[in-house]
């Protein structure tokens, strides 16, 4: 269980999102309620196209919600009256296909947030950036461009870029989806290492149940579209975790408990012909 951190508690309260393409109302999120504790790693698992990204986008401030409320540490991000949150550096997104600016060096990418906000001097920003990159095992590639390093390293740079801004929440939208499973397993351990040093709330979307149980304190299994939590699992494997957790007895038990639920929804999505978001 995470130590009590004062910030980053998200409350999703009865949120509904209805799209209106060509006049046919499509409900993406169906009265979804979810509580995420401060400093918790909350994994959102569900089949493709079920609406989980919609939730993330609503928290981040990219999309509107139709009704309901989302609050962060008690403050309202968006509700029925003001359906769109303002994007901000307290909730930073790490994107599925990566969004490091290819035309800036890794260092400039990492330094981007504080540089734009202008509260530190250039020298301070660079020092902090170099330090955080070294901590994350990225020393040596500061002056390369993102196109020159491997995709696994790019993900790490992106996470460091987010953490430079001391966010309350990290929103991860299937960040490891495009990586092969060997790189993925390395990235998981790297993410946990980073998490143990910077206790942020992590809202992590994935379709990989193993990844979810390995990383998360809490796993919310969502129904296929329209999405709402079908089953919430508390993962009581103690942190800090390492790869041996994958083959532990408790892990197997948790997988058994939840596998059926996930598979059921996956089947429904498949039959409905859902496309990936």
């Amino acid at each position, binding site marked *: 269980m995470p130590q009590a951190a004062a910030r980053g508690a998200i409350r999703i309260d009865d949120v509904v999102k209805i799209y209106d393409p060509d006049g046919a109302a499509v409900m993406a999120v169906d009265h979804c309620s979810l509580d995420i504790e401060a400093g918790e790693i909350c994994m959102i698992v569900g089949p493709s196209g079920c609406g989980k990204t919609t939730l993330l986008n609503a928290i981040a401030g990219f999309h509107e919600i139709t009704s309901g409320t989302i609050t962060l540490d008690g403050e309202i991000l968006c509700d029925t009256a003001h359906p769109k949150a303002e994007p901000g550096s307290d909730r930073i997104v790490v*994107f599925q296909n990566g969004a490091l*600016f290819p035309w800036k060096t890794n260092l400039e990418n990492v330094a981007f947030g504080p540089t*734009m906000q202008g509260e530190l001097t250039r020298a301070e920003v660079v020092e902090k950036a170099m330090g955080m990159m070294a901590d994350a095992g990225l020393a040596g590639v500061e002056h390369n461009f993102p*196109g020159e*390093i*491997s995709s*696994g390293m790019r993900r790490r740079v992106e996470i460091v870029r987010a953490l430079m801004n001391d966010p309350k929440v990290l929103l991860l939208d299937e960040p490891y989806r495009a990586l092969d499973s060997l790189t993925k397993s390395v990235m998981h351990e790297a993410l946990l290492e980073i998490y143990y040093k910077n206790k942020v709330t992590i809202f992590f979307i994935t379709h990989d149940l193993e990844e979810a149980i390995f990383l998360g304190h809490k796993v919310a299994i969502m129904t296929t579209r329209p999405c709402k939590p079908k089953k919430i699992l508390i993962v009581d494997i103690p942190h800090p975790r390492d790869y041996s957790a994958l083959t532990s007895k408790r892990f197997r038990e948790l997988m058994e408990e939840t596998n059926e639920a996930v598979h059921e929804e996956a089947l429904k999505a498949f039959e409905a012909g859902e496309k990936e978001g």
Partner: protein
Amino acid sequence: MEQAKQPVKTEVMLDIFKRTMPFQVVSDAMLRKIAAVSWRVTYEPGAVIYDAGDKADDIYIVVSGKIEHALEPDVQARRPVQTLKAGDVFGWAALLEKFPARLARAICIERAEVVRINGDELLRLLESDPDAGDVVMSRFATMIRQDYTVPDLIAQLRSIHRKLHAADIQGMNPTLYRVSLWLKSPRPYLMLIGFALFLGFWYLAVEVWKLPRFREMPGITGVIKEWISKDPTYGLSLYTPEYYEHIGMSVWRVTQAFFLATILGVPFGLFLGWSKTFKEYLFPVFETLRPIPILAWVPLAIVMFVATESAVIYLTFLASFYATALNTMLGVDSIDESYIRAADCLGASKWQVFRHVIVPGALPFIFTGLQISVGVSWFSLVAAEMVSGQYGLGYVINTSYTMVRYPTIVIGMITLGAVGYITSAIVRLVGDYLMQWRLRELAMGGR
């Protein structure tokens, strides 16, 4: 301790290579050559394959079994101790000049079969085939970077890249890089064949066989003689100052028009792409005027701009402007939404997003547009000069025709082609320089 070397079966070797990175990406022919400098060895559990400080001579591929690989602490590896299995490659210090000694201790844990490749020989083979060598080394670089963070090691890899190519990739001129690769391929020779066929046909058709329509055309010998003569019959050759005056005039006009079009077109295009309101109000007018061919403007331009010089520049400008603005707008449209959202999350203001995301992100398209724009400028310029100019290459071509100076027509055409190509190349070079990140990305991709 080593076991006896076993005889090599090339096919078996190829099979092993194909299951291993980075050798998978190499051609069979190259793999056979590598197989010729490789051999298989078996180790028993507990055998020390090599120790830190030993001479680094060979690279190893694990075929079966388990090897423990323990790096010296001062290497600052992310994971100092690794267990290597089938398909893993180790011992690549053999490829690096600066590290002739082993950095780690390699011990066999479970009975293991390995393939050893002589490092010097491998390097020599990779240098002999720049394309394959480039790919292999960049894959090595990626693999090594994932595990190690020693700046020295990584700098070393770059110097291997340098060894394989004549140019320094870091601050490199990509055109030189391309040229060096090109010279080593069969392409220059085919190119010569192509030109020989073309020029040969021209010569034969006009001057030797005197084919029906061709005999009135200026012949290639006539053109060349005229071009290089110090006292040309028709007044224009490499030695006459008028030649360069005309070239200068045309180039100057294109330069003016191009710069004007760029200064106006790029911002216009950027705003068209960036602001939906701006686009809704201004794009319709733009798109309504655009289908009118530039040359249809000629008479009106003459009426509008009392001086013909301004009319010519206006026409050239217009064509350029359309191309630049359109491509810039497409460039902005092409930027992945994620970049803008990421910048928003990170606290950038609208103006900062424009400056740090939109403009650099659209730059590749902008430069494509600029290259098109240069080409289009020449197109309009020549037409305008032919209709209403007094100097310039278009004028030269037109008057050479009316005054029956046929070889000069061809001189004019060829000069136009050359100058047009050079201006295009200049734009491309500037673009390459401004977008270093793109080239390095391409270079790393092993193209």
